[in-house]
């Protein structure tokens, strides 16, 4: 029953999905992801003050392939949240009403390129 309801809810949402809805959910989830990462990010950097030897240990961890992939994800989230947000401000304040779909696609593509560049430099 619970699963059925969930499936129905999912179907209802996907039935109404459209490109700008995709942009909205991407912006929201990237924002949540970044907000969740930030305390960890700050905590690790604070080690420069509290425990310098542990900081180097953490930074060594970034050599692992899985961590690099996670970093690629974070760079993508940061870039796509920024470009997506700039698109919203341009829409609201500069009257960029048309081609919103293209701007969404462009923002997502550029973010992916930036994250890929990061990954290429990281490996």
């Amino acid at each position, binding site marked *: 029953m619970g699963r059925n309801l969930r499936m129905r809810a999912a179907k209802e949402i996907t039935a109404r999905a459209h490109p700008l809805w995709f942009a909205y959910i991407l912006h929201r989830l990237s924002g949540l992801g970044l907000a969740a990462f930030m*305390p960890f990010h*700050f*905590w690790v950097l604070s080690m*420069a*003050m509290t425990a310098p030897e542990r900081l180097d240990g953490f930074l060594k961890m970034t050599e692992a392939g899985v961590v690099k992939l996670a970093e690629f994800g974070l760079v993508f989230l940061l870039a796509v949240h920024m470009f997506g947000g700039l698109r919203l*401000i341009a829409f609201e304040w500069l009257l960029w009403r048309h081609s919103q779909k293209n701007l969404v696609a462009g923002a997502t593509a550029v973010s992916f390129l930036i994250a890929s560049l*990061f990954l290429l430099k990281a490996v």
Partner: protein
Amino acid sequence: MLGLHHYLLQRITALLMAPLVLGHLAVMIYAVQGGLSAAEILGRTQGSVPWLLFYGTFAVAVSIHAAIGIRSVAHEWIGLKGVFLEAVTWVTGLGLFTMGARAVWAVTFA
């Protein structure tokens, strides 16, 4: 749930952060080459007023921005209202600011 002042703070901090994010992305892509080390990061940032201002501004703006964003999500997806919603907003903002300021201080002047 979001008034004009939330909206303006959200947009102003966003515009403030846009160039900072671009800078942060550039530094990350540059710094990640050849692996990360504490010595490399601290060599760049320690004793530097420009980096203190760069990351200090970033920490302040991101705390406000994230607090308002989390406020929206907490209301729309979890249904938080009233004092609980205010509490989540302020705890997020002040929490991120405290941790962020501490981190910035740690890599610059601590």
